[in-house]
């Protein structure tokens, strides 16, 4: 059984690239174009990790993270955001994200994610 990772990202080209890279590593990828969609798919397919863009239409990343946590999602939520400011990081973690990766992503992206997956408890 492949491990499921959910991509919640509104930009199609970014989704495409993430899918390429993660499928190469053997994950099964699900996609959502906004936070609302992301939350509903998450509870349906129960991914082990969710990559969550912070700026999306309909429901942004912060709202999605809160909904996931209040809904009882227990997997890892990684905030993926173009903003690198301290306040945004704090906000993301407060909303319920476990980790925070700024865009653009680098070569070590997959390694980082694996590292996150291995961690037992929430940060």
């Amino acid at each position, binding site marked *: 059984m492949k491990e499921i990772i959910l991509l919640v990202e509104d*930009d199609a*080209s970014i989704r*495409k*690239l993430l899918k*390429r*890279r993660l499928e190469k590593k053997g994950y099964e990828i699900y996609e959502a174009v906004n936070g609302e969609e992301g939350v509903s798919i998450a509870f349906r397919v129960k991914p082990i990790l969710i990559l969550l863009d912070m700026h999306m239409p309909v429901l942004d990343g912060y709202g999605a993270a809160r909904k996931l946590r209040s809904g009882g999602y227990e997997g890892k939520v990684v905030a993926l955001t173009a903003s690198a400011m301290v306040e945004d990081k704090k906000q993301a973690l407060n909303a319920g994200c476990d980790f925070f990766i700024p865009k653009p992503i680098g*070569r070590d992206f997959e390694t980082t994610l694996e590292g996150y997956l291995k961690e037992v408890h929430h940060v």
Partner: protein
Amino acid sequence: MNELERDSFNNQRLPKGFVIGVLVICITPFLLNIGGVDFGNRQTPDLEGVNNGLSGAKAIDASFYRLSGAFSHTILEWSAFMTAAFTAILAFIHFHINRDVTTPVVCMALFCAGCVDAFHTLAADRLIDAVADNTNLIPFTWAISRVFNALIMITGISILLTKKRDEKVDVERDLVFVGFISTFFILLAYSIIHICAVSETLPITMFPDALITRPWDMGPLILFCFAGFYLFPKFNKKQPGIFSHALIISMFPEIVTELHMAFGSKVLFDNHFNVAHFLKIFAYAVPFCGLMFDYIKTYREKAESEKKTGAIVDSSLNAIITIDKSGRIDLFNPAAEGMFGYKQDEVSMRNIKMLMPEPYKSKHDKYLENYLTTHTRKIIGMGIEVVAQRKDGTTFPIWLSVTEMYVNKEHQFLATIVDITKRKKADEDLRLFRNLIDRSSDCIFVIDPDSGRFTDVNSEATLSLGYEKDELLKMKVKDVALAMESEKDWKYFVEDIREKQQSIVEGLHQRKDGTSFQVEMNVKWIEEGGKSYIVAAARNVTERKKAQEVIVLAREKAEESNRLKSEFLNTMSHELRTPLTVMLGNIPLLCDPQDLPDAEEIGEIANDIEYSGKHLLVLINDLLDLSKIEAGKMDLAYEEVGISNFLKSIVEEMKSYTKERHKDIAFVLDIADFEVVADPMRLKQIFFNLLSNAVKFTDNGEITVFAESMSDRAMFYIKDTGCGIKKEYLPGIFEPFKQVDGSSTRKAGGTGLGLAITKKIVEMHRGTISVDSEEGMGSTFCFYIPINGIKEA
């Protein structure tokens, strides 16, 4: 009877000592009689002795001895008559002062009685011819005179008792009355005398052997008792006074006289005869003394009164001055001396106008003359404020009251003067203070806490509210303050102020014309003179509030602006990083030669990277354009642009752009041929932006390009039949990044800055741009620019 009453009562009676003295004198002869003293004259036994042998001096001596009784009788009677005469004279003098008609009437009665007594004496001494002989004449005339005395006294007093007490003292009428009565008495007396003189035989009045030796004296005795115990006291009650009291007391000697005669005297010139005659003198003397005592009392009272008046005038703090009808000063009290600086003798008999400055000085004589002739009261009987002049020449304000009076038949004027310098100064100070308050730039209201009514307001208050002062003084706070409509509101407010004593309150005041303005008031609770007041100083703070509002708005605007800037920066950062993410994210997929994706995928990846790179380039260019415009660094190069050809070539370029996107769109040109002054490169930028947007958001349909010249400007619009724009996005459509949503824009190939740049370029050309759109129907972007570019000012 209290102290006061006793004092005045005592004043109206003869002194106690005198009364006791009279009583003692009346009783003493009787006591002496008991003690053995005999006052009788020797009888005349040897009538024959005169005729027989005594001659020369001895004979005359014997005659004298024989007539001693007659002599003593004469002395006594004449003394009584003289006393009566003096009493009458004194009475008329008394009347001259006192105007009490009692005195002359009674004394005339006494005098007439005295005249009868005189006749009795003269007849007894044979100094008047009388027909009857002495043995009967003397006792008879005595009896008659006694009866007459009693009757006339009683008559006189009775007349006075019936006379109504008049309020006004009418001198003439009283004199007439006195004269009348007197004449009546005199006639009566004379008639009696005449009868006695011409009668041959007279009744016998002496009965030596009876108990009542002189029965004719019983009559007077009863009459005198009646007078002394009833009539005269009654009169005294009606008209209390020393004289009327003296009349009562005079009855005592009269009664004792009658007792001695009625029961005692047996023969002529005996003990009781002489005692009775002696006491009769006192009967006349007592009223005489009464008059004297009354005189003394009157004089004393007058002196007291004058002293008192003098003391009042002298000690008065107000200046009191009297002048005669020519204006000459008579009375000038010490207070006047102090006030004006003159001494009494310096001003006495000089004209009052010496105390006046001009213009009063020269007018005074005329005023006085005017009043005396016309009797029109200008200041008499009232008070006025004038200016007076001291000895040293300085003037000072006074309050002058003038009245007129008649003193000793002289027409005088009395002036009371108060120096009001201090009072005027206080008034001035108050007026000045009031003026300052009145003209204060704050509106000041004084309010009665119970009713809420304005009890005082200053000028500024009337100006700011548009009411007159008397209008405001009829109004209450709730008529002016918009938040104070109900009684309850007012009560709460009053309680609050009373508790806090002072408070700063904001509110809204309404003018007479209905407009309102904001005020800030300093409100104070004040207790003064036992009453409570609320005093409010109000200031129109409309200006200040407006200024504050402006500041607040400016701050909000600045904050909003900051927020927008942050938002813009955030979005810019996001937009820049997104294509970079695609580029840098895809590259690692191509890095491991051992693990490359298949050729098709490599092609896709390469395309993605290139696409993102290009997008980034466009984005950077747009941002730079925007920054340039914002910084004012974009210069427009104006040229004459032929619209027709210009737009045609642009549309041709767009057609190939459309083909690239595999869209089936028809371009419609509705272009007039004219020239416009603009920057061609920038103008092209506008059209490319608008047209590419139209193409992006129209899948298949029609795009219309319209151009027309109007009088001073050119109108252009791009109309598409695409998906349109949601209403909620329309307001911000020309703002950078503020559009539909980032991803769909990016998907369509846009940066989100195109319209913002377009708008700025239009505005740089001094033009305007607007959008009209309906979701699902399409959008129309329309803009105007001046035909001739920016005109020289």
